[in-house]
């Protein structure tokens, strides 16, 4: 037997002891479980970061967001428009130094296609307190199909460093019971909603 700092003499390609093989076998099996869990969760699980993903010109994205705000704006909060999109609609959220626009009013149990993108640098979409986190990258549209499962007054904390005002970048999402929500005209759902 030799230590790790001695050159092993002769042929060192020898069969391992059974105990060592057992551990390698168990470790390998566990690695397969680790691997299998991910595709499995895509099939059976309800939280997957897949979404629609494509490149987008930041100006085009901003225009879409403006159209979206104009269509469904219901008020203003801290100078930021409050928007109540109908279930099934395409929802646009934009991050820029250093705020999230608009404030969203969603309904519990309804499904939306939530688009995320940035006008300038990377930002981090972190939904507090449920702790769901996504990277917001300029030039890319991340369209996640989301279904709020509980009512609440939530915050969007920016958790990617985006310059000196990073710590001021907090947005808001309000989730209401569908019964309590004001009736809004249903818009024709396109694309993502189902």
């Amino acid at each position: 037997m030799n230590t790790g700092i001695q050159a092993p003499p002769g042929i060192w390609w020898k069969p391992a002891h059974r105990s060592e093989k057992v551990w390698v076998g168990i470790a390998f099996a566990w690695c397969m479980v680790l691997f299998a869990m991910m595709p499995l969760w895509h099939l059976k699980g309800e939280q997957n970061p897949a979404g629609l993903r494509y490149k987008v010109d930041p100006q085009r994205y901003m225009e879409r967001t403006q159209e979206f705000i104009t269509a469904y704006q219901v008020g203003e909060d801290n100078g930021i428009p409050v928007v109540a999109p109908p279930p099934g609609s395409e929802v646009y959220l934009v991050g820029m130094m250093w705020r999230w626009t608009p404030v969203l009013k969603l309904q519990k149990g309804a499904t939306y296609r939530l688009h995320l993108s940035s006008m300038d640098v990377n930002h981090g979409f972190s939904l507090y307190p449920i702790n769901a986190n996504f990277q917001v990258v300029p030039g890319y549209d991340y369209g996640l199909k989301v279904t709020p499962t509980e009512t609440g007054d939530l915050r969007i904390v920016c958790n990617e460093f985006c310059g000196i005002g990073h710590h001021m970048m907090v947005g808001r999402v309000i989730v209401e019971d569908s019964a309590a929500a004001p009736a809004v005209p249903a818009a024709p759902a396109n694309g993502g909603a189902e």
Partner: protein
Amino acid sequence: MTGLAEKTPGAVSRAVFRICPTTGLKVNSQADALIKAHAVVATVSLLVGGIAAIGVLLTRWQAVHLLPAEWFYRILTIHGMSMLIFFIIFFEMAVLYFASAVLLNSRVATPKLGWAAFGLMVLGAVMTEVEMWRGKADVLFTSYVPLRASPAYYLGIILFAVGALVTVCIFFGTLVVARREKTYRGSVPLVTFGAMTAAIIAVITLGHGAAIYIPTFLWSIGVIGNVDPEMYRMVWWALGHSSQQINVAAMVSIWYLLGALTVGAVVLNEKISRTAFVLYILFISMASAHHLLVDPGFGPAWKVWNTSYAMYLAVLASMVHGFTVPAGMEVGQRLRGFGKGLFEWLRKAPWGDPGFSSLVFSVVVFGFVGGITGVTFGTEQINIIAHNTLRIPGHFHATVVSGTAMAFMGLTYYVIPLIFRKQVAFWPLAKIQPYLFAIGMLVFSMAMTFAGTFGVPRRHWDISFTDAPFDVQFSPAVALLIGVMALGGLLAAAGGGIYILVTVWSVFFGKPLVAGAVTGVPQGISSPPRYLPETVKTIEDENRSAWGMAPGTMVLVFVFLAAFVTYYFVNWKLLAALWRIH
């Protein structure tokens, strides 16, 4: 320790050697000097990064909130860069010289070029530091475009990387020289083999580094119009994470090295350990993916395949080393006569040898905290509840700090007598240093990880959100956890400070090593591990039993597996409570 100078004949006659009285190795004077230079600069980097760490820590501790926002992000950039890049890589270059020239009794292939490369690395590091301290690079060490730093910042990193690449090539050159001049017999030792895998990974990594920093530099001086932010993230992390694979390979090599020096740890099976090292190389470029799991640039199939490094085969490699390293130590101890029951080998271990205690902490914290959290957070879906929260720095302070940096510290206690030929100064302090650092870091990183489960962001100046348009009320538990994190961090910082004091003092003002010295010399040197002849037979008897030669380790790895499985599935459970997201 009077080394006797000796000349080798022929074309290489200018190479001067001394014989190390402890290990019997022939140490080349150029290797000696290069190791010293790199180790000294590594320690200086650690000092800079450590001072920055205290600034960052005391600012994130909301009760103190030391620095203004601008300086917080500046100091955080300095902390990341000085620690993760300069400290770690300078030290690794020293390890490469050690594992090639010293362990193989060889001269350095091209010492002059070695010094030039060292100079380039120092120049690059200084340039980058100057830009960061001047406030020309407040972009954090990831410098995600389109955040922009000054051209000199990127150029400094490029120079540093070129220097490192040349040093890695000299390492390979030295391996060739040693083989050609027949300075050793048989295959290279496992530790050298591990260092070799680290060096191969380094070449690939530095290639990715060139691929990202050169365009970014050109962009910063206006030659290139823009760099795609998502491409940047992908290629940058092919550098940023692959370099962590260098760290892991280097750290595991040091585990085998310290095991051998402190308790005569044996290599149970060369084939298994070496294959595990090779697994690290095969999958390294995929490492970028687990930083991009919740990014818009990539689809699920790409994410799942890459984040798992092709079905977790690199994780398998770490789990193998996680068994073979302690098992080798156990067998070494049993051969020395500490063979009663399952755990006498642990009870009778040289806990007062800082090289040994560092080794144990490095293995345990890296595995139990760093490894388990890393695999869990790197799961495609679980990353949704981890990305960019404090869970991430919590995780990597358990890997690269409690694992790699701790191993480096342990090795230093052997490098001081073996290479610098000095006694370790402030010996009683040196003995407790690993305990302070490891326990502090453990508390720090665990508190950080738990705070992160509440959604507390990383890289954030003010989690009281005083200036934000909407209030964010964290649970009271968060304030408590942040307080615990600060205490742990301060303890670790004290441990780090003692390390710097001890090493600097030993190297520059230390007493020369004398034969028979007992204080200031780790036990592995004052009384090197020796096997008892009669134990060899007993070990072979045990070898026939199902539990093998290392039954104690067998028990420990199953405890580890249980912790792993539990933490992993608890996180799926947490994830399942979220909104439905597809």
